[in-house]
């Protein structure tokens, strides 16, 4: 779930027009380097010291943004902000985000079929399809687009059959 707070920060980040490569590098650094995050989150460390660290590591525009997060004591929601930012970027580029959970990985041809079906149905230019394996589905796949769930798995069919048989 993305909070309104994270969404607001993501909008600010979007308006800064940062370079995508620089942002990816910053993301990687902050997600992987635990010590750096600990320093930035620590309220005992002075603002000046934090800022000099940030200036040294990050690119100019991104440094500005991270400084803002630190000042507002919001650096801990950085991951959530990034998620919200991805959503905004997707919206800008008319890209649909969807999630495919499968028991056995479908062939590439099938995946591209699903993608083109989604493009047509939701009137989008591209689809970013997140893939996930879940053996408990037994067979088939489940496709999530926003709130809508397209269930074509054995597990789903079995639970539907159970419902019909016990008449609930």
């Amino acid at each position, binding site marked *: *779930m*993305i909070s*309104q707070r994270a969404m607001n920060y993501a909008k600010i980040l979007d308006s800064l027009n940062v370079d995508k490569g620089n942002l990816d590098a910053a993301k990687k650094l902050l997600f992987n380097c635990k010590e750096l995050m600990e320093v930035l989150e620590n309220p005992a460390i002075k603002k000046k010291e934090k800022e000099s660290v940030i200036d040294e590591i990050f690119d100019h525009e991104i440094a500005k943004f991270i400084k803002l997060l630190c000042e507002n004591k919001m650096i801990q929601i950085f991951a959530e902000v990034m998620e919200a930012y991805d959503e905004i970027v997707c919206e800008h580029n008319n890209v649909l985000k969807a999630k495919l959970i499968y028991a056995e990985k479908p062939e590439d041809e099938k995946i591209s079929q699903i993608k083109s079906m989604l493009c047509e149905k939701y009137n989008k230019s591209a689809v970013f399809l997140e893939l996930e394996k879940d053996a408990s589905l037994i067979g088939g796949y489940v496709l*999530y687009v*926003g*709130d*809508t*769930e*397209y*269930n*074509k798995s054995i597990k*789903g*069919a079995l639970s*539907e*059959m159970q419902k*019909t*048989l016990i008449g*609930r």
Partner: protein
Amino acid sequence: MSNMNQNDIISVLKSEIQDYEIKTTIKETGTVISIGDGIATVYGLDNAMYGELVEFETGVRGIVQNLNRKTIGCVLLGSDYGLKEGSKVVRTQKRAGVPVSDKVIGRVLNALGNPIDGKGAIETNEFYPIENEAAGVCTRKPVTVPLQTGILAIDSMFPIGRGQRELIIGDRQTGKTSIAIDTILNQKGQDVICIYVAIGQKASTVAKIVSTLTKHGAMEYSVVVSSSASDLAPLQYIAPYSGTAIAEYFMNQGKDVLIVYDDLSKHAVAYRTMSLLLERSPGREAYPGDVFYLHSRLLERSCRLDDKYGGGSITALPIIETLAGDVSAYIPTNVISITDGQIFLESELFFAGVRPKAAGSLRIDLAQYREMEVFTQFASDLDKTTKDLLDHGKHLIELLKQPLSKPLSLHEQVILLVTANNRLFNDVPVKDMKSFRSDLMDYFRAKYNNIIEEIDKSKVLTDELINEIIKAAKEFKK
């Protein structure tokens, strides 16, 4: 079903499974982000409607009560066992409703319309939404037909009409429920369907009421909807609406329905619980702002339909419990203002003049008696008129004393009142009133059955009939 053998069942199951067609199911799903106290906050379900029924992955259902920007607030209609953060929730695209059919008569149901009396499932495909719009102005007809409660004090002084809403209000242990139950008992053979809705009552109390109704043969035309004190607040909240939905089903068939809400103070408390948990702003006494609308939209559904629309009616007897006789508290004043008339079960208030203003001679006599009662201690110094007044009053009070679960039929009431109004009781010693009364009725039944039949048939009291009754009563006294 019971005479099916094992092999039959297995073959039916087999064919069902063989013919089962695997389809792609398309559902709108959301995710639980927090759950507690019977309230679930669900992320997603962007298209969910207010009041829609949603289903959780454990099979428990909920009603959408709050719509926020990214989340919705649902009240659970069952146990939250097995639900956790991340549990899936599915839209049903239906509004909450109760199953209805003629088979619900004689049954005890929960707030969702499912039987809880262990007499098996009620098979029906018809559903009525629990929240329904009240009948409009053009579809209604004035209230003209009375509904006898069988309680002399009420039927003689504050008669209730079919389609009316009469509030029964009073402190605990003043006999509010007994009035309602007596009224239900008195509907035997009157072609009236009775619905008793218990909200937040002890299960033992409900069981006692059901056994009273069964004992007197009243379950043949009654339905009990029970949401006891241990039920979740949302279930207590929807119970009266479910009861009204069942009542509307019968009303739409042109039947007269009597519905008792016992009691609406507990209903308001359940709604307050729910609203506070849904984080709605508390107002006076921590009730939410729409607590008035809560009861007005419920009671507005009672009506008498025009003949064009079937001519059925719903008569409502809401019950309100007051604390220390305080009728000016928040909920009592609200419900008093919605209802057409009130029965106060608080002796001092009852006689102090707080009652509908329409006058009948019995009421005036009683009021005069109450005014003069303080002078009884000077009995020897009083003039004759006052003495007569006091004597008459004493006899009237004696006449209105009535044992529990013994409603009086129409002809009994009429004969007793005509006799009393003509002061024919006044020379009978007060302690002998009870036996005199029953002897008088026996005499009428034995010798003047034609009068009884005339009253029951025509339901009109002519001067001729009055004279006949007086004549017969005088004859009996000789």
